[in-house]
């Protein structure tokens, strides 16, 4: 057994390159496994991951615990701005505090609001495809998978398109901290700077919408709730940032990971291209097969026994979606991509329970529309470089996705 496996180092190069093979052994051991590298318990089976996601004896608030332990460290002080905003996020709250924020934001971001974005997703997807060069390598992440979700969520919030590139920089500053790429130098400082600039920008936007409301998310967040209970100014800033940011990287990664999976499975790609495979169901299988979210973190609020393992109050548990989604106890032939898989939707990519991804309807819509457009409008789509995965604990994303195409069809030729 390699040392990485003994220490359960989820950031070891082989774990980053192929978490599925890396975790198969751990999943077949009973109970939770202890990782000395991450100083945390690790849950890998589908049943354990799902139960823990819904277990009220665990909290998603890792920032509170972090601040209690390291609040005086230079890093925490450097990132004080970031934590001041992040502490308002529903994703880190529990119980009634979480419920209140979730209900208020949910009202502004309902599946019905999202459904209306279909036309924009199609129009934008076609527009990005129009710019692809034929016969020379280009980065599909930068040309398609990143700008699509970024533009959609920025547009929904009410952010002008011109400011998109600025948002990407801010988002990357934040993601280094939130997605725990623990080896990046100066990550606390860059997160702090990004938060400060983004907060100022969003505060400005709120001020504009307060006097001149529009049909956008910022305006709806301002209006959400009753006279007695509304979002505070800081809560609106924090949740605008959360939506912007949560809507960026994960959906980008879903599109890229899906393209990689489809290129390795030409029959599946053809079924999706021709319409023989239902796009909605295909997206569920792609979410299962190579989920953009690898890990959710929970902290025990009391001493708990989980799957026969004694977990002490304050212990961290890493819920490994990447392992749960390939659990043979739930998914037959889990390592095979099968776009017709009946129970693909049982994947844990969006979590479960109270924190179930608020943006799931939007991510699903974008992938369901964008992937068939990409496949129909390009010919000879092939990888043109090695796949380099970001060394993150929480998300599975590529650094870039170099591809070539041999021809481009007009959107009207389909």
């Amino acid at each position: 057994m390699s040392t990485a496996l003994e220490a359960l180092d989820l950031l070891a190069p082989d774990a980053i390159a192929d978490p599925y093979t890396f975790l198969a052994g751990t999943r077949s051991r009973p109970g939770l496994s202890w990782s000395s590298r991450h100083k945390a318990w690790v849950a890998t089976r589908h049943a354990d991951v799902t139960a823990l996601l819904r277990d009220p004896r665990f909290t998603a608030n890792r920032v509170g615990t972090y601040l209690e332990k390291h609040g005086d460290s230079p890093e925490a002080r450097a990132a004080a701005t970031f934590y001041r905003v992040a502490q308002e996020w529903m994703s880190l709250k529990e119980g009634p505090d979480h419920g209140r924020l979730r209900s208020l934001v949910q009202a502004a971001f309902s599946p019905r609001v999202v459904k209306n974005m279909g036309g924009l997703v199609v129009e934008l997807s076609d527009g990005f495809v129009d710019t692809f060069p034929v016969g020379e390598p280009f980065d599909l992440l930068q040309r398609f998978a990143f700008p699509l979700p970024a533009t959609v969520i920025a547009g929904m919030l009410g952010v002008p398109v011109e400011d998109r590139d600025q948002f990407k920089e801010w988002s990357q500053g934040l993601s280094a901290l939130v997605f725990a790429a623990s080896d990046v130098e100066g990550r606390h400082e860059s997160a702090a700077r990004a938060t400060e600039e983004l907060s100022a920008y969003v505060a400005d936007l709120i001020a504009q919408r307060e006097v001149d409301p529009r049909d956008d998310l910022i305006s709806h967040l301002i209006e959400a709730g009753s006279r007695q209970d509304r979002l505070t100014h800081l809560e609106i800033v924090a949740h605008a940032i959360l939506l912007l940011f949560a809507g960026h990287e994960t959906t980008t990664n879903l599109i890229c990971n899906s393209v990689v999976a489809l290129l390795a499975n030409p029959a599946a790609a053809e079924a999706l291209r021709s319409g023989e495979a239902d796009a909605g169901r295909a997206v569920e299988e792609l979410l299962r097969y190579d989920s953009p979210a690898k890990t959710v973190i929970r902290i025990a609020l009391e001493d708990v026994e989980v799957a026969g393992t004694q977990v002490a109050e304050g212990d961290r548990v890493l819920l490994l979606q990447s392992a749960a989604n390939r659990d043979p106890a739930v998914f037959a032939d889990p390592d095979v991509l099968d776009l017709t898989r009946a129970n693909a939707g049982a994947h844990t990519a969006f979590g479960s329970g109270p924190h179930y991804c608020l943006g799931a309807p939007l991510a699903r819509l974008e992938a369901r529309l964008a992937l068939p457009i990409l496949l129909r409008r390009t010919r000879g789509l092939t990888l043109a470089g090695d796949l380099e995965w970001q060394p993150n604990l929480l998300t599975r994303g590529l650094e870039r996705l170099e591809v070539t195409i041999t021809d481009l069809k007009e959107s009207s030729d389909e």
Partner: protein
Amino acid sequence: MSDVVRPVVDRDVCVGSANCVRLAPGVFSLVEGQGHADPGGSADGDLMRQAADECPVSAIEW
């Protein structure tokens, strides 16, 4: 407002995010971590529509 709406939660689809429970605790509850609608339903059609519209996995119908 007088028509009673009887929503049902599709338990194969429900992920237990509990938005409906917070909106209309008299109608919806969590049973073993999943949403359940009281068979008596509700006369507040607007509220039921809101619960259905906001459900993140669209598990509420009638």
